[in-house]
């Protein structure tokens, strides 16, 4: 398999991966190998079934040593997957890891083309480009930069709580930032959790108080991240702390101010109870709110709106905690790693007009029902409809805003199970006839199917079919005054009209409405579904394309509590691995100014988004701070005299690639 080096310049080793049949099935790997063997400078040209395997890497390392290879080119999968692997193989053989270039012939060729000849041609062209380019490579070193040991967690739902506690228990200082007045997230709304039916509050609230009491955790609730600067290991995060108009360190959440509020009756929709009850302008979201500090809502408080209130609340506070003069604060903190656990938004069922949510009072969203069946909810767990009646028949409609071309295409993963849970609770509380309308039952978790089986035995009705509409048009006497669910029962094979008193819409999960803004702040990506994009769906599920920023929970995609907690643990472990290492190695693709060539024209200076380029007034030349440079290369492209070089992307290297690909 060896061919003599046929040309001057550095000795190049070329390797092509078959990737089983992933590459070899579409690309004639032998032809590519032969083509490469004939190119100038190529001393070794070999193929192997799995280049990334140990034997594959070992082969490279041995060849480097035995043949004195000076450059390495591997044609395999995406460099985003295995560039690091082969750099290490090069280093193992004693070669500077940056004397290496990777060619992507799997994601960019064998997987996307069917015409074998054309795919092979493409592979040969791209291989030639890399071989041309690699000759210009220079030996480089990764810089080591110390890492700040603190960790920030953004989002205080169950994912954020678990991640924060895990990192804090490992001895790290953690800052937990939560947008709402209290941590707890969606889980705090639930009565029971599927499939074990354990009480949500019973398992969540101890963790919430553990956060509050943990010496290593700083909890910033009612706060939002507004800016993230820096880079892996050395972020500088700006957090906006919204005014609660209550001094957090003085308030004990005693409710005296709430009782004393000039509004004798609660008048404003209570967000925590999904608007099913009312609250006052000064409020505590729920009894276990953490931190247990009241909040004054500036939109409804008379004093904050008009400045003309008797301020009975302030008078009632013996700790003098109420402070109407409180201002928004901005804090800047350095951290080494960031974990994003910002959760999800429930699908707004108003978007499905034909289910009548918002038009018919007895059509409920699932989140409303979670509060309605909750012992600490607006009715104390008593299922009373908006019109005061108790339901005798209840229809639960699955997949509202899920698996739907018009809204969200994905399965929201949790709705089947929470619908079963709600069916169980509603039947238990009301004795009503409960129908579940489903497209497919998806119960693939531990003991989930058993729970479904239990519901079937409990006498809950299951109708397979996507509900066409819900309306109040009665065709028979039985339907008078009720809601009618019209559905094609696909198992029975006919269209049914089922009159019920209450409809529950099992809303799907979607990305937060501001996910796009948030991801810009953190410089990570979103998938086409709007959820945060993980670095790799299988191998890096909690990492992102921004090093040092991790994601966990439903902000990455719909998932249930067990999966969320598992991911949060994983994200915490990744963050710990990063900060515990004490330093990070930076990709050396930074730019530099060749001083003697620089005319000092300053064209590059304003282009750098990281202010890494400064103009040295003494030398009258530009200079680049390597630590601040993130390696985009925009300055190198702009330098009108060609005096800026970007490592790994030098002009000669790219021109070499262009020449190679077209020669």
């Amino acid at each position: 398999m060896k061919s003599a080096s046929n040309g001057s310049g550095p000795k190049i080793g070329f390797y092509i991966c078959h990737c089983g049949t992933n590459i070899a099935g579409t690309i004639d790997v032998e032809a590519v190998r032969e083509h490469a063997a004939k190119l100038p400078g190529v001393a070794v040209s070999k193929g192997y079934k799995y280049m990334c395997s140990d034997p594959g890497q070992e082969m490279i390392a041995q060849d480097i040593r035995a043949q004195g290879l000076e450059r390495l080119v591997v044609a395999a999968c995406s460099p985003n997957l295995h560039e690091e692997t082969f750099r290490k193989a090069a280093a193992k053989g004693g070669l500077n890891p940056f004397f290496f270039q990777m060619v992507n012939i799997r994601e960019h060729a064998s997987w996307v083309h069917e015409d074998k000849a054309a795919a092979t041609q493409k592979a040969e062209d791209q291989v030639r480009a890399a071989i041309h380019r690699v000759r210009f490579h220079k030996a480089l070193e990764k810089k080591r930069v110390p890492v700040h040991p603190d960790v920030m967690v953004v989002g205080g739902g169950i994912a954020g709580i678990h991640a924060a506690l895990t990192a804090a228990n490992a001895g790290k200082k953690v800052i937990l930032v939560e947008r709402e007045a209290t941590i707890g997230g969606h889980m705090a709304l639930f009565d029971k959790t599927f499939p074990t039916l354990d009480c949500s509050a019973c398992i969540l609230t101890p963790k919430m108080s553990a956060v509050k009491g943990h010496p290593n955790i700083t909890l910033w609730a009612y706060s939002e991240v507004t800016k993230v600067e820096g880079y892996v290991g050395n972020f500088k995060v700006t957090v906006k702390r919204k005014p609660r108009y209550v001094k957090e360190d003085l308030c004990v959440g005693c409710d005296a101010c709430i009782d004393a509020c000039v509004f004798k009756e609660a008048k404003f929709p209570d967000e925590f109870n999904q608007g099913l009850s009312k609250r006052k302008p000064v409020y505590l979201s729920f009894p276990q709110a953490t931190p247990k500090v009241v909040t004054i809502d500036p939109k409804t408080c008379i004093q904050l709106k008009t400045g003309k209130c008797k301020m009975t609340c302030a008078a009632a506070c013996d700790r003098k905690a109420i402070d109407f003069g409180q201002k928004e604060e901005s804090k800047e903190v350095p951290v080494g790693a960031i974990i994003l656990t910002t959760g999800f938004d429930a699908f707004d069922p108003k978007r499905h007009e034909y289910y009548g949510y918002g038009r018919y009072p007895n059509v409920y969203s699932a989140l409303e029902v979670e509060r309605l069946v909750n012992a600490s909810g607006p009715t104390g767990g008593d299922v009373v409809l908006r019109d005061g009646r108790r339901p005798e028949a209840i229809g639960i409609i699955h997949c509202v805003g899920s698996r739907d071309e018009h809204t969200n295409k994905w399965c929201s993963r949790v709705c089947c199970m929470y619908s079963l849970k709600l069916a169980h609770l509603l039947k238990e509380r009301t004795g009503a006839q409960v129908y579940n309308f489903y497209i497919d039952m998806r119960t693939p978790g531990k003991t989930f199917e058993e729970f479904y089986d239990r519901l079937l035995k409990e006498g809950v009705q299951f109708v397979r079919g996507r509900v066409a509409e819900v309306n109040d048009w009665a065709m028979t006497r039985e339907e008078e005054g009720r809601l009618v669910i019209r559905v094609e029962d696909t198992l029975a094979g006919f269209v049914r009209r089922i009159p019920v008193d209450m409809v529950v819409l099992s809303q799907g999960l979607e990305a937060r409405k501001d996910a796009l803004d948030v991801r810009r702040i953190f410089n990570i990506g979103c998938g086409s579904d709007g959820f945060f994009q993980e670095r790799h769906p299988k191998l890096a599920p909690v990492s992102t394309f921004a090093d040092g920023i991790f994601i966990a929970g439903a902000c990455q995609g719909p998932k249930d509590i067990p999966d969320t907690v598992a991911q949060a643990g994983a994200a915490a472990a990744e963050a710990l691995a990063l900060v515990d290492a004490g330093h990070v190695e930076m990709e050396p693709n930074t730019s530099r100014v060749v001083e003697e060539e620089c005319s000092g024209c300053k064209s590059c200076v304003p282009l750098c988004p990281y202010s890494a380029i400064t103009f040295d007034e003494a030398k009258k030349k530009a200079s680049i701070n390597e630590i601040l440079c993130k390696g985009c290369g925009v300055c190198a492209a702009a330098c009108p005299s060609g005096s800026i070089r970007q490592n790994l992307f030098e002009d000669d290297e790219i021109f070499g690639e262009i020449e190679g690909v077209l020669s």
Partner: protein
Amino acid sequence: MNYLYYPGCSLKGTGRAYDESLKAVCRALGITLSEVPDWNCCGATAYMSVEETRAHALAARNLSLADAAAADKGLKRDIIAPCSACYLVLAKTLHALDEQIETRVLVERALKAGGLDMPKAGLQVRHPLDVLVNDVGLAAISAKVKSPLKGLKLAPYYGCQLVRPYAAFDDQAHPVTMDRLMAASGAECVDFPLKTRCCGGSLTGTVPDAGLRLAYIILKEAKKRGAHAVVTVCPLCQFNLDGYQDKIAAEFEEVAMPVLYFTQVLGLALGLSERELGIQRGIVPAEPALAGRR
């Protein structure tokens, strides 16, 4: 604002009141309609299921003429088709020409034989409801309302073809555009779950038992919900619901429910006369329901 206008056969016959009221409303709102010269039958609902390609060619002739007229007179390339059947058929042909290469080739050949060009990309078929709400805008219309129809309760009835299958400007199952337009006219729309249910279509002619029953269901429900009149966007719906009420009375019960075009209601609110709007053409007289509401 100027648009191409494709009236179709109904508006020249049974639906004359729709033609009169639409033109009157457009005049009042400063919209110019230029009738497509030498237009022909759209093919209606039946032809497409009998001979699809020829039906497309038939409809494409209208599109071609419209496009040529637009180019000639420098008009906006939007065709207003008030009849739901015309609207759907023309839109379907536009889609077919865009998406089905075989149809495109055959239709192009047919047009060429007739000395016509293919309609160019960007030509649109629009329903007047869409144009009024989305181009003119509710705010502009509200500003021109002279006599709001206070206390007039309407059952908004959209029929089937306006929003299905394309749903170009409203929800397929629960459209609301007309509800909003009627609200802008000062009238009140009752919650009407049957707004897209079948009016009987051509069954009133072919299988009268079935057709009349379907029309009756709609009328009865409108009455039950307290509507003074049904308001519609389609000449066939209007005809079925309005024209057979004597038979419905004989077969089921007396409903006495006037059936108006949305353009007539809007015209009244804009201060136009009943005569201009063809109110008198209704078989079930609408005048009693309208009396004192302006």
